[in-house]
């Protein structure tokens, strides 16, 4: 029990710091929102989303015991990613080892509107500070539905 909580925390922390530092380092290095390897950077942030969602979902499924501090870490990690992710889709980063759909660059406005929705949801979730599993479920659910609403149009499976 203790072990799984600490594992969960470690996982979420790693993800959060990876996302935060990657985004930070890239910004600092280039001095702009551009980056040498935007594909890698955004994939790293996306991995932190996945790792966080796995901890959040694991608590909801009952595979990981619920703990409010872990829950808050999950939400804060998602919030950090939501506020950095959108910077890493410059022109020309649509080809290569990426699942990003060409639609992103055809409809950058629509794509950023989706990211705006996600940011709104993660910011509200962090503020909500859920204290029990039912509250966490409701809060997490409002964030999680943004995953598929964006993936529906803007992500494709790789060949």
């Amino acid at each position, binding site marked *: 029990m203790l072990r799984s909580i600490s594992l969960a925390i470690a996982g979420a922390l790693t993800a959060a710091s990876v996302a935060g530092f990657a985004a930070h380092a890239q910004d600092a290095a280039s001095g702009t929102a551009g980056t040498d390897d935007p594909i890698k950077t955004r994939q790293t942030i996306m991995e932190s989303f996945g790792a966080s969602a796995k901890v959040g979902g694991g608590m909801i499924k009952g595979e990981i015991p619920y703990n409010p501090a872990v829950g808050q870490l999950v939400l804060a990690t998602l919030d950090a990613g939501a506020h950095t992710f959108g910077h890493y889709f410059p022109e020309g980063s649509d080809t290569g080892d990426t699942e990003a759909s*060409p639609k992103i660059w055809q409809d950058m406005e629509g794509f950023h509107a989706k990211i705006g929705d996600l940011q709104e949801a993660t910011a509200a979730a962090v503020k909500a500070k859920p204290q029990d599993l039912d509250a966490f479920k409701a809060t997490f659910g409002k964030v999680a539905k943004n995953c598929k609403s964006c993936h529906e149009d803007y992500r494709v499976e790789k060949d």
Partner: protein
Amino acid sequence: MAKKLLAAAVVLAAAACAGFYVVTMPQPIAAAALPAHEPDVANGERLFLAGSCASCHAAPKAEGEAKLVLSGGLELDTDFGLFRVPNISSDPDAGIGSWSDIDFVNAMKRGLSPSGAHLYPAFPYTSYAKMRLADLLDLKAYLDTLPASSNRVAGHDLSFPYSLRRGIGLWKRLYLSEDPVIAVDENDAELMRGRYLVEGPGHCAQCHTPRDAFGGLETDRWLSGAPNPEGKGRIPNITPSDDGIGSWSLSDLTYYFESGFTPDFDSVGGPMVPVQENLAKLPPEDRAAIAAYLKAVPPLGDASDGGNSGGGNGGADNTGG
């Protein structure tokens, strides 16, 4: 001599035409074959969800209640040409409100319009052919309860020879069958239910199984993934192999159908999103049955062809409506 040859050629050509005429003839089910049946509208709704009918037939990007207005208009840009999804709302003129039960059954099971014309298999009747008559009558009764839309949808824009409907009669002889594809233990009610949902109303194979040069499903590569017909990317392999869902447990599958999250908490995406949202509305035993069937089909690796990139890179956007 030359005369004789010419005569022979004429006879042969006539025989060929007659032969083509015969083998491409529509083969409707007779109205008398329909069972006496008191329609169960709730079961019809369940089949409507399992088939995700609204994914294609609602106006593109419809949300909420608007998903129940089956006004058509979605454009499917394929290698064969541009298909426009028809209005199947209860409107008697623009939709299918004037169709009889047997008209509906023949469209679903035989791919025929009420006048007996062949329908293009972009409408996945090769799956619906496997549905029970009573279920189809229930589905029809449910569709009759949905709102009417007077939206007029233009016809398809197809290239020759696909523009000739008559040829579809021949195609059906090759690819249209009411028989199940995968043999399962007939005493296992859950597997039988899962097979019915996946191979019939769910029509999962229409996207998840590769097609041959004529657009027929390659049943020996059942559910092993396929190029995305709408552009970049692939439709995933959903057989229980390493390339597919081999590492997923039954509860991983049912959780995915319910929540849209994979075991790694990646989320559902693309055209699977509305499908998953409809699966989430089914009774839990149907999701469990689908999962059981997917774990029971032959495990297959991804095809190594990889090449066919489909048409263009844009895909079908939210045009039409």
